[in-house]
């Protein structure tokens, strides 16, 4: 369905991500992003098609559903499952990763607390983001925007919530090692503002269990 597709002549490659390329383009006169999940020739074709289609579907679904949980996400305009493409709102701004790397610590920590609140709101309605990293949040017009829901899924399992936070922790420990403790403290503080006390405590306990399962982690 190519009707209404903005002219590709105006299209500009904004970012070549790992999974998808982001193009800035037009959609009925609006400035939008075309997120195209690219064919990966290193994978078996069947597997690749299956993954790209299901991730595109999930992403479109969760971009919309997360809004109902009170989370700011880009608007979805159009989804093409065959091409594995989503046309979505263009969000100007800087990624949380950039802000942590270049801004004052109290500013970035303020946003990390907001990250915690966002994740707790998702978890509260049984949504798991599945790919929490500091590059998957953008700060735009003084608002935190959550994106990249390609690995998201529904789950009520404590285990999945714990892994969600554990993955973020790993990225923070490796990419922002100088501020890692403060960042995770802020995230968990934000989380506890939204989640009930007992749920937060159970989650913290479970995160420890997940960590201990890691290769060569000492059992304490």
């Amino acid at each position, binding site marked *: 369905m190519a009707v209404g597709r903005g002219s590709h002549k105006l299209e500009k490659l904004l970012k*070549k*991500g*790992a*999974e998808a390329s982001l193009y800035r383009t037009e959609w009925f006169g609006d400035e939008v992003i075309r997120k195209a999940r690219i064919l*990966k*020739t*290193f*994978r*078996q074709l*069947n*597997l690749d098609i299956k*993954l790209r289609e299901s991730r595109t579907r999930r992403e479109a679904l969760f971009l919309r559903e997360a809004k109902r949980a009170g989370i700011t996400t880009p608007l979805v305009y159009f989804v093409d499952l065959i091409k594995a493409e989503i046309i979505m709102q263009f969000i100007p701004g800087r990624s949380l990763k950039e802000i942590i790397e270049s801004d004052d610590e109290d500013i970035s920590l303020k946003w990390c607390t907001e990250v915690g609140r966002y994740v707790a709101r998702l978890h509260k309605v049984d949504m798991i983001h*599945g*790919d*929490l*990293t500091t*590059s998957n949040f953008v700060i735009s017009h003084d608002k935190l925007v959550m994106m990249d829901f390609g*690995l998201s899924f529904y789950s009520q399992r404590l285990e999945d919530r714990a*892994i969600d936070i554990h*993955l*973020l922790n*790993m*990225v923070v*420990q*490796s*990419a922002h*090692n*100088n501020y890692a403790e403060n960042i995770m403290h802020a995230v968990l503080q934000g989380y506890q503002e939204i989640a009930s006390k007992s749920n937060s405590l159970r989650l913290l306990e479970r995160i420890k269990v*997940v960590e201990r*399962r*890691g*290769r*060569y*982690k*000492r059992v304490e």
Partner: protein
Amino acid sequence: MKSLEISTGEQEDSRLEITCLGIESTAHTFGVSIISQRGSAKPEILSDIRSIYQPEKGKGIHPREASRHHAKVAATTVAEALKEAKKPIESVDIVSFSQGPGLGPCLRVGAVVARSISAYFHLPLIPVNHAVAHIELAAMLTRPSDPLVLLVSGGHTVITSLTSERWRVFGETLDITIGQLIDQFGRTAGFSSPFGKTFEEYAKKSQNYIDLPYTIKGNDVSFSGLLTASKRLFHDKKNLEDICFSIQETGFAMLTESVERALVFTEKDELLLVGGVAANNRLQNMLQEVCKIHKAKFYSVPKIFSGDCGAQISWNGLQEFKAGIKLNISDSLVKPSWRLDEVVINWKSF
């Protein structure tokens, strides 16, 4: 015995030759290697002798049996390494050993041998982390400048890069390693570990892809579901070549995707592949493809040094010694759970 002082940049010291005897004994391999380096010249691997414990068909490494094997071959392997290096023991300056991570009983054999040589010949004793040693030897042989590293073996599945004196982990397995996946499936099919080489030969003979669980969580991977599903295919009498092919295509695609994510996130322009599974051609091809897309340079450890070997331990021991690291025998207990990211890297890797 030569008396040794660490060089502080004075000219006469820069030409000083240091010879290290390194002992590897984390799992199935008992390896001894002699390596020499004059000043900061290119190090020379003078010998690298390995004796590998072979489990029975359909069995994995039995830690006790493996340690007995190591104890039996230790003396002759050390002697052979010295002989091939054409170095008398008196010309060895330092002794290094893999202190961890690995199987306790196996590690203890290497540690006992290293302590004995160190005590008898009054040589400094250097502790080496086996994972760091895999990376360091590969880096010395391939010379990247600041790579993202994928370490894949029976003991490890880790994506890491060196920042502020530590190997920071960007992604890893949440349960078993890629090597365990391959070996444990191999055991189910009646082969003894390590199964990697035979596995690749079987996989090469098929083009028939069977759908298997593909589990990516952020930058992390999980292979336990893939193992269970593969075993089920075997019990359902599916063709072994097809199963091996499908495990390879699924498991390696997961790894390649994680690497791609980490490459983009860290903005590195080099990838270094190390560890026993690095010897697999299909994995190399997949990673090369991703490197091409993101304009990263691909490096892979030479096949002969991809598996566990003494050269890893002797080279890293030498680096550590030059950085002033030494160990008292009383502190030399083995560390079966010694994570890569716990080691402070205060020497220059690249």
